[in-house]
């Protein structure tokens, strides 16, 4: 029997939606598969979860540089180095079905050369997709009309800042870990976020008004392996990891669904007020947005066009109807 040491880690704690399945599905699945296949290899996991080694701004570099061998990579924070992965953030109001996003990106990251190469160029191998459930507004105030957003400061991490354009609200960067204090100390008055992320961070305590908007589920990033590390693994271990990654994707989708449902129950029990943005107001938002995909298309060129077309084709193929056809005219 051969023993392998694998450093696995994340900027976020184990309970976090993107880390949960790494710890609770990926690791045990790899162990299980290897044991079943004759116990020839055994993995000795060295866990570095919860940001003990690096902050959320450094998830790509941490895996790329081999600080961990396998890690959660938030491509959402990598607009400069991995822009292609952020296509969902430039095409809001596409679908609220997060399992669909997982399915699409597990497929495209492996089979669309543009995406696969982008991971390879950054020294990584994509194993499993990480997503968010649909984005809504958690704030200190309810949003009944678009006018309610005038002159508000909302946390809108990274590229999601674009969704607030022409709404009169000011986006403030941040991460799940910063919303609570941001809102509590008045840096912001709310955040664009999703139920499964808000529950564990208790943001609803300081932002008790949820306005359901349905901005959509987003591709957040992936569980990825350092490429040199992965290529150097024995073939059976690689296969086991690939298989475990598939199980991880499913577990991740289930966990997010379950957590989102539970989150809504628990948050409302804790005093969260839920209202719905009326359809005509939502239509104003969708159609009032400038063509936010344009700078992304300029930055990513032909590869971007290919990814956008493939993504929207996959959406429609699976029965989704994006509220705005961001791929129009390509």
């Amino acid at each position, binding site marked *: 029997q051969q023993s392998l040491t694998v450093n696995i880690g994340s900027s976020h704690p184990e309970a976090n939606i993107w880390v949960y399945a790494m710890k609770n599905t990926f690791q045990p699945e790899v162990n299980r598969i290897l044991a079943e296949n004759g116990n020839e290899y055994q993995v000795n996991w060295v866990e570095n979860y919860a940001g003990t080694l690096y902050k959320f701004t450094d998830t790509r570099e941490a895996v790329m540089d081999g600080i961990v061998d396998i890690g959660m990579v938030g491509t959402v924070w990598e*607009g*400069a*180095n991995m*822009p292609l992965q952020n296509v969902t953030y430039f095409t809001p109001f596409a679908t609220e079905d997060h399992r669909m996003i997982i399915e699409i990106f597990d497929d495209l990251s492996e089979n669309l050369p543009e995406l696969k190469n982008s991971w390879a160029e950054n020294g990584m191998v994509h194993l499993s997709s990480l997503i968010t459930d649909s984005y809504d507004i958690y704030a200190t105030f309810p949003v009944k009309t678009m006018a309610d957003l005038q*002159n508000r*400061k909302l946390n809108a991490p*990274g*590229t999601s*800042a*674009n969704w607030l*354009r022409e709404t009169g609200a*000011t*986006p*403030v*960067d941040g991460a799940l870990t910063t919303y609570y204090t941001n809102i509590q100390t008045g*840096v912001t008055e709310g955040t664009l976020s999703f139920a499964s992320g808000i529950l564990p961070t208790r943001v609803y305590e300081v932002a008790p008004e949820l306005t359901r908007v349905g901005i959509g589920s987003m591709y957040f990033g992936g569980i990825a392996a350092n490429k040199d590390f992965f290529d150097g693994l024995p073939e059976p271990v690689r296969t086991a990891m690939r298989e475990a990654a598939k199980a991880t994707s499913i577990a991740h989708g289930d966990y997010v669904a379950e957590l989102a449902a539970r989150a809504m129950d628990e948050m409302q029990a804790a005093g969260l007020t839920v209202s719905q943005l009326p359809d005509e107001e939502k239509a104003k938002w969708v159609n009032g947005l400038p063509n*936010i995909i*344009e*700078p*992304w298309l300029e*930055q990513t060129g032909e590869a971007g066009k290919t990814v956008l077309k493939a993504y929207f084709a996959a959406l429609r193929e699976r029965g989704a109807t994006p509220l705005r056809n961001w791929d129009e005219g390509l």
Partner: protein
Amino acid sequence: MSTEDTPELQEDRFVPSFYEAPYGAVLGSVAAAMSAVGTASIGALMLLIVADVIGRNFLDAPITGVSEIAARAVVAIVFLQVPAAILQLRLTRADFLVRRMQKFSPRLVALLESLFCLAGAIVFALILWASWPKFLSAWQTAEFFGVQGVWTIPTWPFRGITILGCIVAALAALYRARVEIRSIGSTA
């Protein structure tokens, strides 16, 4: 107002004259210039935050990106100021033992001090070595922070400040080491 300077404001003169120490004079001037830029950045940071607070609360015009810019500015301020801090011997340390030893064996102290300075030069050389590739790639790939379509700022100037700071800091530490080693010779 009192005319005498308060002790916490006493200025450390660390730029020697060019005739006495040409190397130290040039290095000191570069360090002083960098430190002045860093100092000015602190003032700019204060004004930026005040403008943001006033804009947000009274003019309905918050400034986008203040926290991100402030975050990067903090790192820049450190690397701009560090060479001057080294030349002014202002890096924090517990020198109670050294001050005691000074009475009995100034040569040993000077030797120890020069070793510490060398260690400092090595530390900054290590950071330089580690940071150089990222600076190059940030330059080549036009890496930015911020949000496409909202506001973006290239990262290379910030990475460049780290590089510049490390180079001058390492040289400053080496210069200090030379000063200490010479003092061994002179007390011999």
